[in-house]
Structure formats: structure tokens, C-alpha cells
């Protein structure tokens, strides 16, 4: 149980910045997800929390105590690695027991704790096997068991599910969330998968280029993005961004027109609209905001992703599951005007 605070933490290797002046507060028992594309500094941030990397600047505190000079092994932090990092020469039982042995937990308690952790991740039948004899999902669970067995102050998970197939990933996601709630241990979870972030997190920290872009609950991140990066990184397919102008309170762009958008600024602006906030209208007479030619139709079963060629750009729309069309057909689209986002076309920052 611990509250973590990062104050102005930076990491640089010579002229290369890995992480730039990051300030994050992580509440006790919270599950915080660091989300971003590869190279955004999320893993480096986590490794600094773990003590595997020293920050170049700034302070990291656990419960108010500065941790910068504390060695990784003394921070009482457990980490699940992307490649599992199980000890290949030991059985699963020995793997899970290792942290207890290293921390001199009394021998008679060790067995009980190992079996309890193994049971939690449903691995009780595989304790005598070596990691090499397990499947990817089982190895992942073994790594998880090794992390939870000594009930550390803090869990760190570095893309733990990225090596698993989609189905397994979903199951493990639920399991991780359940175990985290059950043990009530502060957790930092690193991922580049926005669905993992949305489903797991109490709060998400979106990072790019070593800097924090936005911190918020999954709802806030999704429905109130701070800039175009966050807007287009979250959501699949991502938010459509349309460059245009504000003229007399109306948004105007190539083949797009939205009246009375309620934005005070004038001139160049970027409009954001999520694919699910667009709808195809049946006839050209009906009110619509956008015209485009069908460029692609991708049925996914529960919906159909329709790609329209609008001017020079491809924009995506989540259409009805029964929607079908031919390529090149002109379609008219209406926007949900309550869910429009405007961004500065230069900086990408949100305009309200």
C-alpha cells in the first residue's frame, strides 16, 4: 500500500530525452495506466519507479519518502515484465518462491504463500513444471503469481499482455483487474494498447515524446481529450480530424459544413468527430454535414466500418451492422453536434 509521487522527473541520455519533466501523483490502491506509442517514455517512467533506472532530474517518493537513492531491491516493488522474465532453471514453484526466499520469509510460511498465489492465478496444477514447458498464458500467470506472492507495496506491469493472443489477453485483463482490486495494491501498468488502458485503468496517463499529454479517468480521456494526439490515439477507429475554418459561427471545410458550432474564435481550426458520432443518412434531402464517396466497407460483425473519401482525406464512420454499399457511391453523413471537438490547427490543443 503506497502513494507514489513523481515530481519533475526527467531522464536523458546525453542529448536524448527519454522522459521530460513528468509530474504524476498516484493514489493509494489506484490502478494507473501509462499509455502511449512506443518510444513515448512510458516504460522508462516505470523503470524509474522500480529503481532500475535513475532519474536525471526530479524526485520520486513513496508515501512521501524520497526513493531516488534507494536500491531497486529495497523498494518493495514487484514487476511483471513483458517477456515474463521467469527463471528458466527453476520450476514454477521455485519461481514463485524466489522472492520469499530472497526476503527471508520463514520457511514454513513460504509454502502456504506460494500455493495461495498459484491458486489465485489458477496455476496450482503446474507447479512442478519448468517455464519452458508452459504456454504463453501460463507463463504470464506464473510471472503474475511471482509478483503477488509477497504482497509488495507496489505492482509494476510492463506490457504484460502484449505477447498473448487476443482471446487470452481479454481473459488475463479481467484477471489482473480482479486480483488488483482483491489485493488493493497500488499498481502502475504500462501499455500501448488503448483498449487495455480503457478497461483496466482507474486513471490513464497519456504520454508522447517523453511528456505527459493528459491525465484522467478513461471517460475523461475518451470524451474530453486535451489535444489532437490524445483524441486520435484513443478509440478504434480513431477520431476523425478535419481541417477547416470558422465563418460566422459555422464550421466550413471541403465537403463539410456544420452550422452554429458555438466556438468564439474565427479562422483556421481543426474539427474532431468520433466515428460512432457520425451516421449515414438515407437521402440527400435530409439534413447532413458531410458528403463523401465510399472508399471502403469493412464489416466487423457487430458494426460496419465505412471509410469515406472526403476531398483529399479518408474519414471513418461506424455504420450499422447491416450497412453495405458499393465503392464510389456518394453518401451523406450527419454529425452528432453535441459531440464535436475543436482543436487549434497549429498547436493541436483543444479549443473550447
Amino acid at each position, binding site marked *: 500500500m503506497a502513494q507514489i509521487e513523481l515530481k519533475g522527473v526527467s531522464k536523458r541520455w546525453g542529448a536524448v530525452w527519454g522522459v521530460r519533466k513528468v509530474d504524476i501523483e498516484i493514489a493509494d490502491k489506484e490502478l494507473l495506466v501509462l499509455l502511449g506509442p512506443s518510444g513515448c517514455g512510458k516504460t522508462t517512467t516505470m523503470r524509474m519507479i522500480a*529503481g532500475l533506472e535513475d532519474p536525471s532530474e526530479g524526485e520520486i517518493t513513496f508515501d512521501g519518502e524520497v526513493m531516488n537513492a534507494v536500491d531497486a531491491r529495497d523498494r518493495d516493488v514487484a*514487476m511483471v*515484465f513483458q*517477456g515474463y522474465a*521467469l527463471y528458466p*532453471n527453476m520450476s514454477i514453484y521455485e519461481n514463485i518462491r524466489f*522472492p520469499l526466499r530472497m526476503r527471508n520469509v520463514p520457511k514454513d510460511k513460504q509454502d502456504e504463500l506460494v500455493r495461495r498465489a498459484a491458486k489465485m492465478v489458477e496455476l496450482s496444477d503446474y507447479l512442478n513444471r519448468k517455464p519452458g514447458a508452459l504456454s504463453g498464458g501460463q507463463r504470464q500467470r506464473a510471472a503474475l503469481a*511471482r509478483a503477488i506472492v509477497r504482497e509488495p507495496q507496489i505492482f509494476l506491469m510492463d506490457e504484460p499482455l502484449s505477447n498473448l493472443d487476443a482471446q487470452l489477453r481479454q481473459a488475463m485483463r479481467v484477471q489482473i483487474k480482479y486480483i488488483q482490486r482483491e489485493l488493493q495494491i497500488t499498481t502502475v501498468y504500462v501499455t500501448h494498447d488503448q483498449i487495455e488502458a480503457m478497461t483496466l485503468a482507474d486513471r490513464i496517463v497519456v504520454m508522447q515524446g517523453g511528456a505527459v499529454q493528459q491525465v484522467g479517468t478513461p471517460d475523461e480521456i475518451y470524451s474530453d481529450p486535451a489535444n489532437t494526439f490524445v483524441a486520435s490515439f484513443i478509440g478504434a477507429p480513431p477520431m476523425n480530424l478535419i481541417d477547416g475554418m470558422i465563418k460566422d459561427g459555422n464550421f466550413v471545410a471541403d465537403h463539410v459544413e456544420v452550422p452554429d458550432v458555438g466556438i468564439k474564435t474565427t479562422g483556421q481550426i481543426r474539427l474532431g468527430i468520433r466515428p460512432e458520432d457520425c451516421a449515414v443518412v438515407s437521402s440527400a434531402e435530409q439534413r447532413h454535414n458531410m458528403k463523401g464517396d465510399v472508399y471502403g466497407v469493412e464489416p466487423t460483425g457487430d458494426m460496419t466500418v465505412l471509410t469515406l473519401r472526403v476531398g483529399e482525406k479518408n474519414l471513418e464512420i461506424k455504420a450499422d451492422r447491416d450497412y453495405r454499399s458499393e465503392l464510389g457511391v456518394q453518401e451523406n453523413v450527419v454529425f452528432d453536434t453535441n459531440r464535436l471537438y475543436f482543436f487549434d490547427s497549429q498547436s493541436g490543443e483543444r479549443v473550447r
Partner: protein
Amino acid sequence: MHDSSLSDTRSAPATTAVTKTRFRRRSKWLRAWFPYLLVAPAVIYLLGITLYPGIYAIVQSFYAVKFGPWNPVGFNNYVKLWGDYQFWGALWNTLLMGTISLTLQCVLALTLAFHAYRDPWVRGWRIIFLVPMLFMPSAVAFIYKLMFLDARVFSDILIRFGLVDGNLAIQSSIWGSRALLILTDVWQWTPFLFIIFVAALQGQDEEIEEAARLDGATWAKIFWNISLPLMRPVIAVALVIRGIDITTMFANVFIVTKGGPAFGTETISYFIYRTGFKFFNFGYASAASVIMLVLTIIVAQVVVKRAFKSARG
């Protein structure tokens, strides 16, 4: 003419010209044997310099050969070896010096490697440690002979420090001579193991080491619990290579001690050399070589197999 040919290529439909490839066929016989033909010269060469002398030695070991005609003696040479205390002595010396030397080298190399592999200067260390290996083995033997026996450098240093009164008579003590041979071997060949071990440690999954650190393991515990068990196959192979080298140790013995004093440092190789090239008892020497060969193969097989089995488990 020129123009027309140009326009020809332009107007000719690409499909007819390009796709009409004639498939060349090779005979079945050639296809089956071609790979063997390619490697045949190398294989014949290798067999010529290893298999032929080997078989020759095995055949010779059943004969009494002293320059003249070969007289078949059956297993007589082997029976004689069984009762030859000098043969057993040489075997014992080889085993004794080999084990001590190998153990020392291995421990030293592991210790050095584990301290060096995370060092930013590891490349430099590797080059520095490589130096002893680059010397000609006989040159190293001569250096050590000069230092400890002929020129008495070592004794002289000790005398100057007031640690001993007179010259140390290393060559007159069996253990002194053995220690000298061991020292020579350790000095020259620890680097070989060091380089292999450093490479093995550097090849280890860094995440595993980090996981162990977060699990609360100290460097010493990481070494004993994780690095060392994972290195077992590498250690085994390195020790077998080195072990075979030591078993056939000849140059050092020949140059430094000549097997003395009182045959106390006579190795199997030196025994074979003495039997063959001093007493010209070729059949007898061949028999001893065959036994040594068999012993080496058995030991190497057992060591490698066990090491790999436990690592895979």
C-alpha cells in the same frame, strides 16, 4: 532499322516475351549427389588427417614394433600397460594436475567474468585478458622456466624482500614442480574461459536479472541462483575443451620439468612420447594413446550430457 527495332520492343506485348521461360532440368542423380560432391574434398582431407592415423594407431597397438617388422602380440601391450606403474603414475599425475589446474582456472575465470561483464570497460578487459592466450605455448613455458628455475627471478625477488634465505629448489620438489606447471597453465588459459564466460553472461536475458533484483536478490544471490545454473552448459563445454587440452599437456612438461623429479610431473602425453620416441617402443606407445583417447571421449561425453540434461530438465 534502328528505329524499327526500337518500335518493335515497344509494341511487342510483354506477356508473350517474358513469361515464356524454358525450365532447365537437372538429372535426378546430380540433384541427389551434388551436395556431397561439394563437401567431399573437405571431408576426405579431414578423414585423411584424423581417421587414418587413428586407425593406424589402433592397429599398431596390437603389434610389437621396434623399427623392424611388426610382430603381432594380441592384447599383450594392453596387459603390460595394466601392470606398468609408470603408466599409472602418469595417469594419476595428469588427473591430479589437470583437476587442480582446471578448477583454479574455472573459479578464477567465473569470478573475473561475473565482476567484469557489467563493467563499461568490458571490451578493454577482454582484450587485456586475451594477451596471455596469444603467446606461443612453448614461449610461455620457457618464460616460466626462466622465471622460476633457470634464472631464479622469483627466488631472487623473495630473497630481496627477506622472505627466504637462499634459492628455492623448486625443481627438486615434486609438488613444487607440479605447482609450477599448474601456474603456467592457469596463467595462459584462464583468459580462454574468461572470454567464454563473459560472453555467456552478456548473452543472458537482462530482464531476468532485473526481475531477480526486484525480487530482492543481491548480486551474489543472483549469481548462485540464476546466472550459474543457466551457464552450466557453457561451463561444461568450455571445461571439456580445456580438459582435453590439459589431458594432452605436453609442451609445458617437455620444456619445464621433463617429467621430473622422479616422474612426479610426467603426464600421459609425456609418457607416450618417452615410450615412443626415446625407447622406440611404438606398439606400446600406441596402446597407451588408444587408452587415453577412449578415456577422454568417455569423460567428455558424460560431462556434456549431464550438463545439458540438467539445464533443460
